[in-house]
């Protein structure tokens, strides 16, 4: 019998206050850890959980093991429950930890973009490889890979029962096993517009006590689409006299946490050129999911005062953890000089 520190579960509970669910801390959520004993099936709820921290199981684990599920209940009417994570702890069942690396430093949920890589690391040091009497379930573990598209949603209400199992693998060595994905494998016609999640679950092998095995750890990475934009109100090569026309900046699939802006500079389109911002042409996406926005800058003529007449480029740029991407641009000729043709005569 042994007790199990639940730091992993409680750390996950801490993430509940994050914008994943769009809520803050306080009394909006109540956390529960449910411990189910095997093989008896006795269920116990831990008393009084903080949002973060460590807590030892109050009920010693049976030889058959115990499953710990971390849940939170949101005080809506009716209440809404979220399963944050679960893990199985047993005498002969190995333990495993799944972590996912991306280029995005966002802490709460690993996330990346449809055109970027991610890595899955699975660590274990509890496989009993030197014990010839150890059951098979103590000597290896399975990895299950699921994918699920968010469709037109932002993923907060998906039914994960509908995820697609794409394949399995076996780990039979202690240490870290790494899977490097250069791109997402979530299904989708337009590969730049894929949106969804990929989940990696480590499972114990089925044995007599757990005929289906038990999940040992699981993590998912969110994949968000590549943004795109268009500038309406100015056409390429247009001659603009006197006053800038009203424009619309249509932004699609802005990456969560990204900053997007519209700039102008004198001359032909040049990647990386620094210009002047168009006021009202910027949008910070503070949501934890991709968003669409339409911006309508007005009265932005004075942006061009310093550069004066001539060929100009207007472009939409988004800044993400993956760098700067130009989403759209248009080039136009500006001529605001009033030429006065005539003669001045005096009357005497």
């Amino acid at each position, binding site marked *: 019998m042994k007790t199990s520190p639940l730091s992993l579960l409680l750390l996950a509970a801490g993430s509940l206050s994050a914008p994943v669910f769009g809520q803050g801390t306080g009394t909006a959520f109540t956390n*529960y850890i*449910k411990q189910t004993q095997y093989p*008896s*099936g*006795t269920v*116990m*709820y*831990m*008393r*009084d959980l903080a949002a973060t921290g460590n807590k030892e199981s*109050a*009920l*010693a684990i049976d030889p058959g093991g115990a499953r710990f599920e971390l849940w939170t*209940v949101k*005080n809506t*009417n009716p*209440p809404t*429950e979220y*399963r944050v994570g*679960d893990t199985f702890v047993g005498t002969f069942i190995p333990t495993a930890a799944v972590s996912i690396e991306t280029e995005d430093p966002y802490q709460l949920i690993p996330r990346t973009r*449809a055109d970027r890589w991610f890595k899955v690391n699975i660590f274990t040091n509890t496989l009993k490889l030197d014990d010839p009497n150890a059951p098979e379930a103590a000597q290896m573990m399975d990895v*299950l890979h699921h994918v699920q598209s968010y469709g037109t949603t932002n993923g907060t209400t998906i039914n994960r*029962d509908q*995820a697609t*199992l794409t*394949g399995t*693998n076996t780990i039979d060595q202690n240490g870290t096993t790494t899977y*490097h994905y*250069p*791109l997402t494998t979530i299904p989708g016609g337009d*590969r*730049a*517009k894929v949106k969804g999640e990929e989940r990696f*679950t480590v499972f114990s092998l*089925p044995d007599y006590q757990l005929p*289906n*095995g038990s*999940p040992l750890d*699981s993590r998912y990475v969110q994949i968000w689409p*590549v*943004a795109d934009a268009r500038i309406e109100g100015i056409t390429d090569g247009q001659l603009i006299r006197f006053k800038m026309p009203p424009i619309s900046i249509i932004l699609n699939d802005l990456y969560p946490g990204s*900053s997007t*802006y519209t*700039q102008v500079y004198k001359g032909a389109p040049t*990647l*990386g050129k*620094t210009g*002047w*911002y168009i*006021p*009202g*042409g910027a949008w*910070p996406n503070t949501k934890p999911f991709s968003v669409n926005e339409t911006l309508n800058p007005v009265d*932005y003529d004075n*942006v061009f*005062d310093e550069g004066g007449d001539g060929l100009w480029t207007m472009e939409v740029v988004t*800044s993400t953890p993956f760098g*700067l*991407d130009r*989403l759209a641009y248009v080039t136009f000729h500006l001529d605001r000089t009033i030429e006065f043709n005539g003669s001045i005569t005096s009357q005497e």
Partner: protein
Amino acid sequence: MKVSTLIFTAFSAVLAGQAGAQAPQQQVMRDAVTHEDLVAQARKAAQEKIVPTFKPPVGEDRVALTRPKSLLESSDIICFSGMATLVPKGAILHTPKGVASRIGMQDGARFVSWGDFLNANRGWIVASSVSRAQAEGQEALSEALVKTFEKEARLVVAVFNEGPISVLPVKTPAAPATAPK
């Protein structure tokens, strides 16, 4: 982090509507990738065999088979005076008629932890400690405890180390087979 600071500063200026704020010198800029770019990347990755290969799944999805049941559905909800809490099904040992209406969700009730709920409702709830063997159905509840239920007007909830716990029915050992005469 200088670049980030610069971007933030300039970005703030734009949001504040300061016309003509100059965009900062930044990292390398590129055009956003397209579907065609990604198809080509995926093809290259497949040719170079750098994509992890998993075996096709066989049989039922074990994640679905072992997915935990709903917490709310597998719990009893105790509700009173705008507060609610969850205990495992099987943890309520005794429900007097006078408090039976407090089992189940009431509109607008706010969930609190078991400890907070118990502290606020000790007048009509009692936490009764049980042993591990009793919770697992290895031993019956003591007769003395069961007898108190006859006169107990409070809700009795089984706890182990102060946490609410389900108490399984006592397992009756299989009767030994009698040898044929």
